[in-house]
């Protein structure tokens, strides 16, 4: 044993190690803290942005969920509106007169034009429809609640600030006085904006609603689901359970992975050239939109389905094969049902992505200005995201808040769909 010399040398160098570590430790721990600090900073930035995003949408959007209305006693003057003349008639003048009744200070002749602009352009059509339906109202006085036009709506909601100089304000002092008079008369109300969900698009922000977009998105998603779901599952089952390991199945796999990463606008080009250009399908139709979205959603569904099939343990397959079931029977009667929750979760997530997809729908013309909701998937329509795009492009202040409101509605749907997916996953998740 010759451990005297090495041991002494060793003690010295051990001490040197200890000293060195001690010396460097504070600096090294500081370095680690800095790294952690950067990490926390990055997360804080991400959270802050999300917060600003949601906060700015809510701040600009919540006003669109209510709409300023005025309740008027309207005398249906037979001199203006006659039964024979329907559906034409002086509906607008009748309404203007009704407003003037509540504005004792205004001159019926000179101020008629200004007063008329207080009401939404849609008010006259509302009155017209009511009278066309029941002509016996002519000559009577009816009580009617109609929306105000956008500037006055904004004035009421605070979108137009009273302290801005008159020449920069969209509502002049005279108009402000009229509004205040109506308000004092207690006939201004701000109820929940049902029109946001029951009206289609309009040039007038106070009338514009999401019905067309909602119906359009519904048809598009339905088409997307009906096509992508069966084809996606079929492809996934084939690739996962039946496909021989050969060039073709490898090629299909590479294809699917790449399709999942192709930019969405390229799918729009495909749809425009092939579906509309070559097959002659109608432009702006939710059906074509759904078809396009289906091609984009399919890879997501295939990947999710394959993962779900893979998660079913081999013991189930072996058990079924062991009692003499054919490969098809094993897959369709045992494996597929067990994988279904996972498949549905993936499908819902895929559909949620499809619901928010905008670019391909723009290219096939689903950004058209259409004032009625589609009645079939082949009618021209918009979808929720394209409606957001249209409104975001419109200069009127009322459209800004409506854009935010539409986004909140869209996000609401997305949260709901993802919520369902998470619920399904938690409820049916099995640990094998």
């Amino acid at each position, binding site marked *: 044993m*010759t451990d005297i010399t090495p041991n002494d040398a060793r003690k010295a160098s*051990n001490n040197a190690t200890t000293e060195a570590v001690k010396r460097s430790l504070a600096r090294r721990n500081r370095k680690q803290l800095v790294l952690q600090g950067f990490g926390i900073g990055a997360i804080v930035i991400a959270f802050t942005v999300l917060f600003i995003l949601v906060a700015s949408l809510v701040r600009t959007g919540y006003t669109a969920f209510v709409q300023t209305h005025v309740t008027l006693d309207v005398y249906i003057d037979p001199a203006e509106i006659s039964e024979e003349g329907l559906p034409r008639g002086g509906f607008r003048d009748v309404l203007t007169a009704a407003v003037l009744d509540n504005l004792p200070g205004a001159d019926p002749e000179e101020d008629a034009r200004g007063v008329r602009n207080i009401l939404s352009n849609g008010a006259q059509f509302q009155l017209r429809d009511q009278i066309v339906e029941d002509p016996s109202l002519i000559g009577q006085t009816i009580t009617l609640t109609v929306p105000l036009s956008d500037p006055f709506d904004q004035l009421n909601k605070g979108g137009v600030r009273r302290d801005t100089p008159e020449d920069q304000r969209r509502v002049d002092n005279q108009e402000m006085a009229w509004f205040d008079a109506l308000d004092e008369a207690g006939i201004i109300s701000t109820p929940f904006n049902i029109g946001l969900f029951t009206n289609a698009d309009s040039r007038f922000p106070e009338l514009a609603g999401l019905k067309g977009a909602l119906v359009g998105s519904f048809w598009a998603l339905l088409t997307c689901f009906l096509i992508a779901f069966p084809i996606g599952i079929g492809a996934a089952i084939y690739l996962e359970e039946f496909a021989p390991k050969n060039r073709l199945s490898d090629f299909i796999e590479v294809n699917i992975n790449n399709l999942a990463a192709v930019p969405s606008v390229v799918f729009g080009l495909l749809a425009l050239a092939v579906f509309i250009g070559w097959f002659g399908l109608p432009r702006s139709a939710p059906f074509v939109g759904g078809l396009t979205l289906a091609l984009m959603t399919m890879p997501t569904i295939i990947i999710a389905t394959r993962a779900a099939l893979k998660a079913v343990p081999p013991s189930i397959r072996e058990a079924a094969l062991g009692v003499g079931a054919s490969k098809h029977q094993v897959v369709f009667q045992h494996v597929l049902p067990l994988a279904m929750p996972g498949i549905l979760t993936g499908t819902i997530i895929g559909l949620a992505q499809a619901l928010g997809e905008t670019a391909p729908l723009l290219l096939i013309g689903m950004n058209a200005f259409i004032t009625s909701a589609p009645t079939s998937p082949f009618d021209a329509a918009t979808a929720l995201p394209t409606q957001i795009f249209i409104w975001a492009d419109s200069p009127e202040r009322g459209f800004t808040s409506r854009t935010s409101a539409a986004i909140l509605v869209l996000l609401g749907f997305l949260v709901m769909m993802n919520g369902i997916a998470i619920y399904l996953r938690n409820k049916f998740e099995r640990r094998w």
Partner: protein
Amino acid sequence: MNDMRLTERNMTDHKIKMQARGVDVFYGHDQAIKNVDVDIEDNTVTAFIGPSGCGKSTFLRCLNRMNDTIDVCRVTGDIRLDDEDIYDPQVDPVQLRAKVGMVFQKPNPFPKSIYDNVAYGPKIHGLATNKAELDEIVEKSLRRAAIWDEAKDRLDQPGTGLSGGQQQRLCIARAVATNPEVLLMDEPCSALDPIATAQVEELIDELRERFSVVIVTHSMQQAARVSQKTAFFHLGELVEYGETSQIFTNPQDTRTESYITGRIG
């Protein structure tokens, strides 16, 4: 087995390097180690043996606080290195691990060059002030790990390109490069072939000159070949601890005897 060497070994008394008293380890609510007392001597190879799942590796990882990295793991009791409580809040695990090195079951060289693998420890701890010193440390460590001759011409090649046995010796070189006082080895040969195993075992015996070595092994022959002291663990308890020759020839506990003779395990 080489009985000649067994008897030759237990001659000198060594000072106690590490001392464990009443150590319990819990994983969540499960107790993995129950009330273990053990003394690790300097310049000695101490082997921990026992059936798999007996807690020998868990206990080994307590000695350099590697269990800290597992969230649910809780260690109580008293473990001292040179009479200093290593679980004292004042002690930084970083400092402790520089003194108590570790080699793992599977060779785990970093995906860097051989040189950088060995130089990593000295670099982070600031043990070398210049490149020449660092070169010297690397060479010395590789020599100590008996891999210098194989590695000296390929220091800039990735450590992952070496064979399994070479990788494990590289990991040993990496561990000794920081000049530790204790070297923990967690089944260091279980992933190696017999020839590589023999080389590593020979190396362990040499390392004893400078370090206190603790080795976990599932192979009793290996324990008998390389160690002077042996601790037998069973179901989280330290059943018996003593001179290797005595444990293998004259075990006091019936459980140890059953294990040695192959009735449990």
